């Protein structure tokens, strides 16, 4: 697990992934196997964090990995790193799954679920405890309370900003702004460039 965290951390592994992805785009299944080893942990972990259900998470993570194979030739290096591309795909799929399930349940049921959810402090705490990357944990701590809660509810829970606002009893505009300035602070703290 330590190894997986390293792959996503230092940027020096990234050129390798781009090179491997190029070979995958040419139909090389051995390279895909290598790429799988580098990506499956982060993909599965993120999807599991959002969906919670292991069986469903495995299904979605598999879909994401097959999608990497399918659209390898469509990766555009100028839009970001391979890891970022894949994690974006994984998050979107997980969130789509959450939302389509939500659409199936009615409004009343949704608000009932919301009341049963653990308090947001507990959520943030739980997230923080399980985070493997020291830097991410440190940077999350540098956010204001509202920024941290908003960002973690949106990203790790798959909430829309409207749902975040309802959960935190904060105005919509404020939440939108906190999501942005919270991420900007994380970006600067982690030294992310794109």
């Amino acid at each position: 697990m330590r190894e997986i965290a390293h792959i996503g951390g230092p940027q020096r592994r990234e050129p390798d992934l781009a090179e491997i992805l190029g070979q995958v785009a040419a139909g090389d299944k051995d390279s895909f196997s290598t790429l799988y080893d580098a990506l499956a942990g982060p993909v599965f972990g993120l999807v599991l964090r959002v969906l919670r259900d292991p069986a469903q998470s495995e299904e979605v993570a598999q879909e994401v990995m097959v999608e990497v194979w399918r659209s390898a030739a469509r990766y555009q290096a100028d839009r970001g790193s391979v890891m970022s591309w894949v994690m974006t795909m994984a998050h979107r799929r997980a969130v789509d799954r959450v939302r389509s399930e939500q659409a199936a349940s009615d409004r009343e049921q949704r608000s009932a679920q919301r009341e049963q959810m653990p308090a947001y402090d507990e959520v943030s705490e739980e997230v923080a405890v399980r985070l493997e990357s020291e830097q991410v944990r440190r940077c999350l701590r540098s956010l204001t309370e509202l920024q941290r809660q908003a960002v973690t509810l949106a990203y790790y829970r798959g909430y829309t900003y409207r749902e975040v606002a309802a959960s935190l009893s904060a105005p919509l505009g404020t939440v939108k702004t906190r999501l942005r300035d919270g991420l900007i602070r994380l970006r600067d703290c982690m030294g992310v460039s794109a």
Partner: protein
Amino acid sequence: MSDEHLHAPTGAYALDALPDDERDAFERHLETCPACAQEVRELTATAARLGVSAATAPPPGMKAAVLAGIDSVRQLPPLVPGGGASAVSPVRRGRALPRLVLAACVAAAVGFGGVAAWQYQRADEASEQARAAQDQADRLTAVLSAPDARTVTGATEGGTRATVVVSRERNSAVFVASGLPKPPAGKTYQLWFDDDGAMRPAGLVSSDGASVMQGGVDGASGVGVTVEPLGGSAEPTTGPLMVMSFPT
């Protein structure tokens, strides 16, 4: 203030936290706002770091399932300016090839040209290889662009899909496979023309992609695929994986 208003959804967008309608509207806005697009790239990369930090060992059976899964999944060609390649319609048996399908076949053939589907590769003879690849590409194009080109598709039980494009006029055929598993060690896939039950060797195939079949179509009524020892056989030594009849 107005700047703040324009940029405000970048964070929510990067976190997939916009409802569908707002996401669509913001994506339209992004096309005309390079500064927003740059910020979205940075914040998306930042969000991805949050995702990586949640890494967990995947279930042990997942890799085998994924590797089996990709066998039946055709890879998308790269995006090209002008688009169109994604609008490929399914190939219909026995009909003239729609233009878009032809374009996609040629794109796939060119894409695979670099990795070459043929076994006769010697690393120290790069120029010969390049010439062979070019020759292969030219012949592919000749068949695929023939006015009388017809297609027939087949699939194995394992989910490998194959299409044969045949031109009687050019007396030539192209075999296109998708999801072809690696042959067992010491084995290769061999193509055959079916001359009324007599199988005529038509070359070897070692990976996905398009391959020109060796020899003329002549009076063949179809195509077969078998697994043979490396180098191929004079006649099939195993039962066919796939048999496809040409349209009449």
